[in-house]
């Protein structure tokens, strides 16, 4: 490697790291974000506010309602003298149990009537879990509360959850959030770098330096790849140390996945910065890439069910592969066949976006 190139890379590093505020945002913010998202997010539904509407002297209904509260999923809401639907409409309760007017025990003894469950359907995911939890508590406890002998279930499933048996949220969220943060940092750094130099006129100086096109591109990207990798390492270390996210696969697999991903995002960022005419456009370009990439990463909703027509968009999302790789390596121990498949996809993307960025870059120079 030529000395000039090394010097150029050093200059680029110095330029990025000169501003202490930038250093903060590069190294401290990702940690804070990791911690916040890792601790705050949970796909489990908790604190469901449940009101029970029954006759004041209906002891069986009250007993059953207490069972709901003691299950830990539900918080009781006072329902005295209020209209059941009104409790949901006003937002006072997420769900309302309406017991038969004749009394729960009597209805159960005669085997007639029904307990109605009103669920607020505004939040679709929450509504579904509310109903599933309510049904589970109801099936297990209703007979005993009504004073009938509970029959053992003739058929039951012993359900076991692999890889994350306690279904701890951080173990699931952290690998996903890691990818998002690394993606965000690298795209923001690179999508504006060239546009900025062009706008400020310093680009001319670089072009007139004794460097080949290839070297200028290397000098403009290598520092960001390095920074991206440092960031990835920091974030993974934080996940391991703070949240106890297991690292069951090999470290070289992690390194390879991070390298493939960072090269891809740095190339995409460089591409954006060669296309945009000013920094505002570069930022919008960054947004247009980041927003769908984050949404389709497989964290927010199950992407496997996307309509066939839109599915190819998922296969173009580098974050989708990186998230899949992280989960596979960290939680499953890095099954070689799956690793090879996702890694190959990332490598192809890195090569394709890298070439494209180089072509565009040459055009911009000439």
């Amino acid at each position: 490697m030529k000395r000039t190139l090394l010097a150029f890379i050093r200059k680029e590093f110095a330029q990025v790291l000169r501003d202490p505020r930038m250093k903060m945002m590069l190294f401290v913010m990702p940690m804070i974000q990791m911690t916040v998202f890792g601790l705050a997010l949970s796909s489990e539904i908790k604190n469901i506010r449940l009101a029970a509407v029954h006759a004041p002297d209906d002891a069986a209904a009250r007993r059953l309602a207490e069972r709901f509260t003691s299950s830990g999923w539900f918080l009781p809401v006072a329902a005295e003298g209020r209209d059941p639907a009104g409790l949901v409409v006003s937002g006072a309760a997420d769900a309302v149990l309406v017991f038969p007017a004749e009394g729960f025990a009597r209805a159960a003894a005669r085997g007639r009537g029904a307990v109605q469950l009103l669920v607020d359907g505004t939040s679709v995911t929450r509504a579904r879990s509310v109903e599933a939890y309510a049904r589970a508590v109801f099936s297990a406890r209703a007979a005993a509360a009504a004073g009938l002998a509970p029959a053992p279930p003739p058929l039951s499933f012993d359900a076991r959850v692999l890889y994350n048996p306690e279904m701890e949220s951080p173990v699931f969220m952290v690998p996903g959030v890691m990818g998002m943060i690394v993606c965000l940092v690298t795209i923001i750094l690179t999508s504006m770098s060239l546009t900025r130099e062009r706008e400020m006129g310093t680009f001319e100086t670089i072009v007139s330096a004794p460097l080949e096109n290839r070297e200028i591109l290397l000098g403009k990207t290598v520092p960001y790849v390095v920074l991206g990798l440092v960031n990835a390492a920091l974030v993974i270390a934080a996940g391991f140390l703070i949240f106890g996210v297991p690292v069951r696969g090999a470290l070289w697999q992690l390194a390879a996945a991070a390298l493939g991903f960072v090269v891809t995002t740095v190339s995409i960022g460089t591409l954006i910065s060669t296309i945009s005419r000013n920094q505002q456009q570069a930022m919008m370009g960054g947004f247009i890439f980041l927003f769908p990439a984050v949404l389709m990463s497989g964290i927010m909703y199950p992407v496997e069910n996307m309509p066939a027509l839109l599915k190819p968009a998922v296969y173009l999302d580098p974050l989708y592969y990186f998230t899949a790789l992280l989960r596979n390596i960290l939680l499953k121990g890095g099954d070689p066949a799956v690793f090879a498949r996702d890694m190959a996809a990332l490598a192809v993307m890195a090569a394709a976006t890298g070439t494209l960025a180089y072509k565009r870059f040459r055009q911009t120079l000439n």
Partner: protein
Amino acid sequence: MTFFDPRRAAAVARKEVMHILRDPFTLVLVLGLPVVLVVFFGFAIDFDVKNLRLGVYDRDNTRHSRQVASVFESSGYFLPEGASSPADAARGLDSGRYSAALLIEPGFGRDLGRGAPARVQFIVDGTDNSKAQAVLGYLPGITSAALRKTGAPAAADPVPLATRYMYNPELNSRWFVIPGLAVIIIGLLSILMTALTVAREWENGSMELLLSTPLRPAEIIAGKIAPYVLLVLGGVFFVNLVARLGFGVPFRGSHPLFLSGTLLFALACLSQGIVISVITRQQQLAMQLSMISGLLPSLLLSGFIFPVESMPPFFRYFTMILSPRWFMEAARGITIRGAGAADLALPLLALCGLCALLLAAAFRKFKTDLEP
């Protein structure tokens, strides 16, 4: 010198409009991008977990065990495939070939036939919590279907539990996703727009020029924000048009209430952008800060998909400083539930408070700069 002269603010606004019109890119983006994203993700996001590949190892191989396996298939959620051994099923889970596995031991059919408790092992891939939870949620329904199919004596509930979902009886994902998506996109674009335009003026020195004129900070801020408020309202209009006509999302509440909520939210986000630009005074940092304070927090902490109610107490309070969290609640309440001003007093007041706070912060930062 007056503290605020509307004519001078209007002059700043006129200048900003000229900036926007000169670069039609911004205009097209703010009006068009939200619609494109809402249409795309309106179709794409569906929380139903379907077509799960299920590895079935049936060592019992009786009529009853085959019936149980077939119930999984007819539920529409699972695609059963035969696994040759429990180890094969485990490998399938490792490699991601299966999302779940069903292991039926010998004696299952006999037990079920004579009414003894019959058990089946069911193993779920836990690398994706939300998926695993959805899969486990299907089990009660499958159990009762399997009991009906095999004719085993069902331990029925003493009385049935009848569920009714209010406001969205079919639990249509789109009614949930689209209003939320609109909030996030509009909020982010608002932050980004003002953050960058003002940071650019600092960077190329034209802000110094503005400050040396008789313009007061309040006038500059008002003039900078006003054109973008109109632009944002235009974006919201088109998004709602698409949501209602294209996706059939209901609008059950009051339009004036929705409009005032939107105004408050747009103001809060635009002021957040101004605060960012005044702090950073550099476009790259401004983008960094807006993306960090805007993109991930609004996607993950606003209640868009992950419910705020399920967060630990500290973070439930923490989300209160995010304007999208409040407008998310208000927008969904107004469109889907038809909630009125009284029901939404808390989110609307919180939005007012955040708006005032951010505007005050922007104003103060400007002011200290003017009078060192």
